[in-house]
């Protein structure tokens, strides 16, 4: 177990290093100057050079990279060009928003996916099963921005039930704690559903498959003949045995979501990591780009690793060595 974790951490840090190097050099070597984003072209050359010197952009690029790595290892990710604040602060400000969105979405997704899969299996080969399967197949392939657009058009514009963008209503600072919570919850429903609906389709399909496989096992017949109730069968035998594929999908998904649901956050103007990343990329804010890359890379790697470990716990046959 320990050896497995060590090896995973080793390969993960290799991966992270490779990704950071790639993004760093791709950002710095491609045409486009961050200084031009902040200064008008009328500003004299020496002022621009001064700013470039302040940003540390006048050094050799390899030296710059070395500098960044040295600082990053001591926990200093530099100062964002656009926000004029430490990168860590900027990221820490939006990370909770992304985490709230990601966790809500995952919970929705799991509940929807597992529920419909269980129903479909209970009524296997009936019309309900066919309908659920086809719906899940269609839903799981839908692009998130299309789902979000439909939800917006229906629940926000046509019925006027839910707010269409942002995280707080105007004047939310003066709300009481309970009202604030309710307000955020109302803003949370649409983006979370946008992420959860396509994902739940995939989870439903996988879970249905593995449930069907489990039900064909001999121990299920035995447990049934012993006289266990359907509920007990489901909770103690079917669920634990059918869960592993779902866990590995979830691991991938949580990592990606925590590094920012880029499209959904843009659509709903949700102030999270995804939108920050896109902003940083378009403003060529090099320190912030690197910070976002690092944070999202860490999330993806850690989530995958935890999923693998969980997989081993749920299914003892796949003990990692």
């Amino acid at each position, binding site marked *: 177990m320990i050896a497995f974790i060590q090896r995973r951490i080793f390969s993960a840090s290799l991966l992270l290093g*490779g990704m950071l190097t790639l993004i760093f050099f791709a950002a710095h070597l*491609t045409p486009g100057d961050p200084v031009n984003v902040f200064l008008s072209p009328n500003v004299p050359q020496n002022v621009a050079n001064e700013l470039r010197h302040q940003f540390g952009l006048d050094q050799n690029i390899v030296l710059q990279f070395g500098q960044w790595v040295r600082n990053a290892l001591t926990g200093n990710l530099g100062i964002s060009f656009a926000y004029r604040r430490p990168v860590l602060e900027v990221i820490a400000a939006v990370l909770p928003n992304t985490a709230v969105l990601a966790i809500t979405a995952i919970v929705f997704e799991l509940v929807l996916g597992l529920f419909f899969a269980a129903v479909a299996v209970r009524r296997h080969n009936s019309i309900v099963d066919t309908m659920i399967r086809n719906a899940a197949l269609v839903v799981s392939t839908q692009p998130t921005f299309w789902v979000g657009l439909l939800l917006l*058009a229906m629940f926000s514009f046509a019925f006027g039930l839910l707010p269409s963008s942002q995280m707080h209503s105007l004047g939310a600072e003066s709300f009481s704690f309970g009202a604030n919570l309710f307000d955020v919850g109302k803003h949370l429903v649409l983006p979370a559903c946008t992420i959860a609906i396509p994902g739940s389709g995939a989870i439903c399909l996988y879970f249905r498959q593995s449930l069907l496989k489990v039900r064909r096992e001999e121990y299920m017949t035995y447990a049934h003949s012993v006289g266990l109730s359907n509920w007990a069968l489901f909770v103690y035998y079917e669920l634990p045995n059918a869960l592993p594929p779902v866990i590995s999908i979830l691991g991938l998904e949580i990592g990606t979501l925590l590094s920012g649901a880029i*499209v959904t956050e843009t659509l709903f103007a949700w102030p999270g990591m995804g939108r920050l990343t896109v902003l940083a990329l378009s403003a060529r804010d090099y320190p912030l780009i690197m910070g976002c890359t690092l944070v999202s890379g860490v999330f993806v790697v850690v989530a995958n690793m935890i999923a693998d470990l969980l997989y081993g716990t749920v299914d003892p046959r796949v003990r990692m060595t």
Partner: protein
Amino acid sequence: MNKRFLSVWRVIGGQRPASVVLAVVFILFSLWRWKVILMSCVSLLLVLLVFVGGGTNISQCLRPGLFEYWLAAFVWMLMAFLFGKRYAKILLGSGNNMSGGSGCSEPANEEGARFGHPAVLVLLSYVFVAMMAPLLAPHDPTAQGDLRTTRLLKPLESRVTIGKTPLIEKDGPEMTSAFVPRMLEHVNGYLLQLKNPYAHHDAPMPGALNEHDRRVEVFFLGTDDLGRDVFSRVIYGLRISVLIGTLSVACSILIASLVGFVAGIQGGWIDHVLMRITDLFIAVPSLFLVISLVAFFGNSTTLLVLVLGTTGWMGVARIIRGEVAILNEREFISASRLLGRSSLQIVRDHMIPNLMPAIVVAMVLQLGNVILAEAALSFLGLGIQPPTPSLGNMIGESLPYLRSAWWVGIFPGIILSALVVQANLVGERLQNTGRNRA
């Protein structure tokens, strides 16, 4: 006659389904736009004349802007040629099962196969529409109308214009500067001149504004905020999606088979290194990588294709490598190796035919993914740039008008989601069929 011809369904699944459908489509199409077909035939003859005569404009046919379309057409033709015979039966022939004619029943019908059969036809028709975009689109997808009269018209709303009636409609943005449409315009002008000897003068035509030149334009799916026809834009957007999808799938299949075959056949440390690289690519969140690459390197069509192609090959490479490793142990491979055939010959004669089903399935599934990725990029404003319509950027641009004009964003969305669903259904069907054969 017999049972097989009882319903349209079974006709499609009958003896020569594809040709029947194509013939019907072609006849309907030619009835609809006979003028266009006539004119393009004339211009094609003119092109051939110029070609034979050695004019100066031949290079126009091979402009870099058009090159991508030629390439996409070539890839589709190649695929049709390579896989047409083998898969026509699997894809279209299951109608025979419905009529109970064939002896072996297909247990594949249980899982997702029910949709597969019409899905293939629908996917092919999408490709057909995409390839024929300049002929099918009733309006220029980028031409802005008079904003006072054409802004945000509802679907099926019409507008009356008074003025010179063009003999045929203008072609799309990519084609207008190309050689063939210019020839077309030339012919057009010539015919107009025959009809009206004053047409080539700058002076206004006598009687141009009379009742005779009154013309009603119908916007089938309405217009967007700049008075552009949504229907034409959807058709052109579909074209971009299919184009980018096809090319980048071809690109990623190329990389995947290179990596997969080399890793599977060589084995040893080469295999190890290549597979670790594949793992690295899998672990990187692909949308993040694609977005940063596109943000840094710009977003021409070629770069989009390359970026999407180089971020989508990992799954296929793994599949190919696994299958090759299994095949390597089989007797017939060892036999041909003992006969002294080189690795390349073995790959060509034994590996590729055996791997084709797996590769085709992966390609079709990848097509759906790539189309989605391109649409997401364009939606964020990082993919295809605004004057050129793409399904993604149409949806993105429609957001400010969603409250007042739903049709601007909803129709491209419907087409996009249908396209992706079809690609996935076809992939699934092929997969199930392959599994049953094996």
